[in-house]
């Protein structure tokens, strides 16, 4: 029979863990709401940006800017967006595992795969496996801002234009809902043109100020920033969603555990009382004899 004191200690320890998980769940819920608001607020700009880029690019064609043109080369840059903190269920593990598998499966297909990593968790994962990381971005997820997206975009666009890689993909957790995230790989650039006919060549072209070429040169990097910002925001929302779910089930588990331990504790206490009674009774019997 388990020691009564040990069980009592265990219960109080589980209780304090439960307090923490419950608080973390509530904090995550609040942060999730804020992250969702940020996504919604950023949406109009992103949508307008995409419309304009698609409209201009459709009129200009692939050759108008290097970011639009598909290349022969086989060098890939992969941006992996993980989180800085853990305790978010399989949020990071699922993603890093998928990326690891991707690296192994596509080793032959690409000449070289360069990794860019957002988040401490991803950095730690690849460092443990001694997979080289070109650049890591830590601590940007606490308050995602446009300037963070800009810094990442500059590195990726710069490397692409300098010919260090020919294609850029991004691996991240897509935010589906508060309780559902999915690992996703998205091709970032060369920017794919939505080849729908509605904005075809018969549409009147814009007048450009200063010129189409210069506008594209300014517009496309900005577009990349917008995409990265969107993905960072989605990832943050997903992280909070995942943590909220994880902490919710942790809290539930601790409730079950406390119930089980309490039962055990009561049994143990009753057993002690029974033993004591038996001792007293048999002692009295012995005296009578």
């Amino acid at each position, binding site marked *: 029979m388990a020691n009564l004191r040990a069980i009592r200690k265990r219960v109080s320890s589980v209780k304090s863990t439960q307090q923490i998980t419950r608080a973390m769940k509530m904090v995550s819920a609040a942060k999730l709401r804020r992250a969702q608001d*940020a996504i919604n607020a950023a949406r109009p700009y992103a949508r307008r940006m995409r419309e304009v880029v698609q409209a201009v690019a459709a009129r200009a064609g692939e050759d108008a800017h290097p970011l639009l043109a598909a290349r022969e080369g086989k060098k890939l840059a992969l941006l992996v967006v993980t989180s800085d903190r853990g305790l978010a269920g399989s949020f990071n593990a699922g993603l890093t595992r998928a990326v690891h598998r991707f690296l192994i499966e596509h080793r032959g297909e690409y000449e070289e795969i360069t990794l860019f990593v957002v988040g401490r968790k991803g950095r730690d994962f690849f460092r443990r496996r001694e997979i080289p990381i070109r650049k890591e971005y830590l601590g940007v997820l606490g308050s995602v801002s*446009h300037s963070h997206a800009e810094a990442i975009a500059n590195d990726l666009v710069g490397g692409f234009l300098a010919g260090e890689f020919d294609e850029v993909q991004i691996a991240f957790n897509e935010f589906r809902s508060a309780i559902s995230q999915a690992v996703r790989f998205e091709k970032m650039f060369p920017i794919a043109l939505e080849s729908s006919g509605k904005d075809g060549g018969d549409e009147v072209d814009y007048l*450009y100020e200063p010129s189409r070429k210069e506008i594209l040169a300014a517009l496309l990097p900005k577009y990349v920033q917008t995409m990265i910002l969107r993905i960072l925001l989605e990832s943050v929302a997903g992280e909070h969603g995942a943590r909220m779910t994880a902490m919710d089930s942790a809290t539930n588990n601790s409730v079950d555990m406390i119930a089980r331990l309490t039962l055990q504790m009561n049994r143990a206490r009753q057993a002690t009382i029974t033993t004591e009674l038996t001792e007293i009774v048999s002692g009295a019997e012995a005296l009578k004899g």
Partner: protein
Amino acid sequence: MASTIRLELVTPERLVLSEEVDEVVLPGYEGEFGVLPGHTQYLAILNIGMLWYRKGSAVTRIALGGGFAEVNHDRVVVMADTAERSDEIDVERAQRARDRAEARLKELSMDDDTYAKAHAELERALVRMAAGGGE
């Protein structure tokens, strides 16, 4: 043809406004340009500068931190890096930012990497002051 234009102003952080207006003036790359209903399709890079629009006889000024504008017959979409309405601007803060930027510019030479950045900072501060009704 519509007699008003839909002006939509967005920044990466939020939708700033979406309104029917009579006239818009934007700080274009090669100088200010006005947009009235029925304007031709136009796509422009915007400088740091002031946007203003007229609705009836009411004029609103907004300080823009650069961006792009797409004009489409009866719609103007402004994608700005930053945008502050004149009534949101803290003029004193803008003045402090200007003083800071001026001080920094004095220390830097023209070929410093950060010169352009500091200069843009100064321009932004000046535009905000102007839009906010400062000196």
